[in-house]
């Protein structure tokens, strides 16, 4: 059956004279088709319910068509205006603006535009609402400039107009700048006022807390995983069930349990006071701060550290440590020089799992984090469901994603992703 010629001058041929590669591909085509058919339902499901909506959501972080759609004539007229002169736009701009606003007010679109521009310059929302109510009653024969200034003196301010011009393009970096506490002004990118800078410190806190949680999980999980992997099968199975037990209880229930335990008058504080370690007015603040978030999330994410560690440790034969000892190493040297390096892939897998889960965690910080223990994801949720500033939410989400990817890249550089294994 092997008539494939091993001729150095040409491609290897199959028995019937076709190139071997092509006939191999043909032979494998059915298998590939089968594999594709098997994954197709899930692939479509994910594409329609997950990837497309997320893509749409991320697109909102730069999308800004509302200005040019609501005020099409104004945007065109503003193109000729040079804001650096410090003079107001000419009458043609005001006329175009009047025309746009009449239509907008009629369709009740001006309030949405006002809210949008309010993200960038405060006061815009009320300005547009006020103007929208009066734009119908304006005298079309008189110059519009004075009439608008009459409605609100902000229309006589160059800043107002330059803000409209600045955010008239269809795409804007405004949301992303906002997500890193910057803002776009006619003079370029500037820092936001000090009292409005919250996101950078929130990103930083999210990182620091996630690192802390990952480290605590490692510290608490490593000995447990070690014990588990060295016990006889029967007892290790029982312990494993205890490790997995939290998975069988609702996340909400577990988090609420921490509330009961950690609060000011809670079990831990009361016990410590009762046995005299703490005085009654010296109760520990364990909840509604970063401490609460760290304690509760370490508990919740611990299994994700233990399981990869366990499965890696399980594959390390006890003969390695024995060999090290027989070669003269003390218990500690044998552990540190021989056992520990072989568990690094498990630490890598567990750490990356816990860290990535922690960085996007929402419900636990929300419930036990108070104000100083919340994560960036809580802010994203707030913008999605309360402030309805989806553009900013999308920008914050994208920034978080980018941050995670950068960390992943760093991780690959330092640890090497090939060194990560789950068993």
């Amino acid at each position, binding site marked *: 059956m092997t008539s494939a010629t091993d001729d150095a001058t040409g491609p290897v041929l199959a028995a019937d004279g076709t190139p071997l590669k092509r006939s191999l591909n043909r032979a494998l085509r059915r298998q590939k088709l089968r594999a594709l058919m098997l994954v197709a339902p899930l692939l479509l499901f994910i594409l329609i319910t997950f990837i497309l909506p997320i893509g749409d959501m991320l697109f909102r972080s730069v999308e800004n068509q509302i200005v040019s759609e609501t005020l099409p004539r104004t945007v065109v007229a503003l193109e000729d205006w040079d804001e650096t002169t410090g003079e107001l736009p000419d009458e043609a701009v005001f006329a175009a603006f009047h025309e746009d606003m009449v239509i907008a007010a009629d369709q009740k679109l001006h309030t949405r535009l006002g809210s949008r521009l309010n993200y960038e310059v405060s006061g815009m929302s009320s300005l547009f609402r006020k103007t929208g109510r009066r734009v119908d009653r304006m005298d079309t024969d008189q110059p519009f400039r004075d009439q608008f200034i009459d409605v609100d003196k902000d229309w006589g301010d160059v800043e107002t107009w330059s803000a409209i011009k600045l955010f008239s393009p269809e795409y804007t970096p405004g949301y992303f700048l906002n997500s890193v506490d910057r803002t776009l002004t006619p003079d370029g990118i500037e820092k936001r006022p000090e009292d409005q800078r919250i996101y950078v410190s929130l990103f930083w806190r999210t990182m620091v807390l996630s690192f802390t949680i990952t480290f605590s999980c490692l510290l608490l999980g490593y000995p447990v995983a070690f014990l588990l992997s060295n016990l006889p099968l029967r007892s290790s199975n029982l312990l494993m069930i205890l490790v997995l037990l939290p998975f069988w209880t609702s996340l909400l229930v577990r988090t609420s349990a921490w509330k009961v335990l950690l609060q000011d008058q809670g079990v831990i504080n009361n016990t410590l006071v009762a046995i005299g370690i703490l005085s009654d007015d010296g109760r520990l603040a364990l909840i509604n701060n970063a401490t609460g978030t760290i304690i509760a999330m370490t508990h919740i994410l611990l299994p994700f550290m233990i399981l990869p560690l366990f499965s890696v440790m399980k594959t390390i*034969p006890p*003969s*390695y440590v*024995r*060999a*090290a*000892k*027989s*070669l*003269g*190493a*003390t*218990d500690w*040297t*044998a552990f540190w*020089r*021989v056992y520990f*390096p*072989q568990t690094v892939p498990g630490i890598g897998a567990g750490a990356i799992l816990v860290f990535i889960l922690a960085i996007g965690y929402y419900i636990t910080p929300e419930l036990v984090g108070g104000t100083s223990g919340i994560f960036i994801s809580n802010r994203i949720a707030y913008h999605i469901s309360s402030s309805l500033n989806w553009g900013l939410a999308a920008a914050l989400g994208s920034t978080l994603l980018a941050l995670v990817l950068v960390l992943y890249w760093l991780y690959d550089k330092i640890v090497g992703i090939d060194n990560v294994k789950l068993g």
Partner: protein
Amino acid sequence: MLDQTSDDAFVAFDRVQKSYDGETLVVKDLNLRIGKGEFLTMLGPSGSGKTTCLMMLAGFETATHGDILLDGKPINNIPPHKRGIGMVFQNYALFPHMTVGENLAFPLEVRGLGKSEREEKVMGALDMVQMGEFAGRRPAQLSGGQQQRIALARALVFEPELVLMDEPLGALDKQLREHMQFEIKHLHERLGVTVVYVTHDQSEALTMSDRVAVFDDGRIQQLAPPDVLYEQPENAFVAQFIGENNKLNGTVTARADSTVTVDLPNGLTVDALAVNCGDVGAATTLSLRPERVFLDQSAPNRTTGHVQELIYLGDHIRCRMSVAGNDEFVVKVPNAAGHRHLKVGETTDVSWHTEDCRALDAS
């Protein structure tokens, strides 16, 4: 070399017992003395306690009762890393995250040797096993036989006086295994270290050892040099476990100085060497090596055999026949010039010398 007196024994097990669960004894009352420079093999089926004994000597298991002495000093309470015993493991246990050179330097490093001295010794050990060029490789890049040599070099590099080997050749194929047997043997001769070797492979035990301890059921069944073990087994287990053996069950009917007369179930009466059998009336097992049976009437104990099966093995022909009610009676016919050509179904004479037939305990 074989020094049986306790004063000179390098390694001594003194009434050692071991139990894991407190109910059954894995090692029952072990007494064993190993001389300096000796190559002693612990041979036995799995679960016979041989590996447990080795682990107790290495310090990874504690003896439930009894003393283990190394060079005259009890070592029961000395942790493994202070015993200074080299060990070769079944799966080699080369540290996968270190290169071959680092693996070999490890025991020297923990002993605080300087860098240049370390390198010198590592190279020396690698040259000893003809692996000098492989210092920079990782264990995973080596073949099984090469890994085995590195494991050997690592166990020897810190110059221990005692080296333990736990089925070190178990994972190798037959040819390589035989080759490595000779290499280990030669290393032992050259370095003069004491070796305690555990295996379940009897040919390995016979080729390499000065003495072999046959383990079964937590006890040493026989401790003897290989030739004695094969030719003069002391009980039915050893006779059956070492080499091929024909077993005939019978009853002792008369007893002279060193021989007994045994009645076999089919009415045959034979004489046998009294080794480990009871008095008149006791049941006994007769042990007879296949190559000590003649296909004629030249020897004093004679009967007939019915040929059941012939297997051609090149240098000899293995003939299974039915003799005295035993269907598994095997005779080896050497493929010499003009040997007898047997046929299946044929009946032939068989005979053997009294001293080749050993009367052992009933099993």
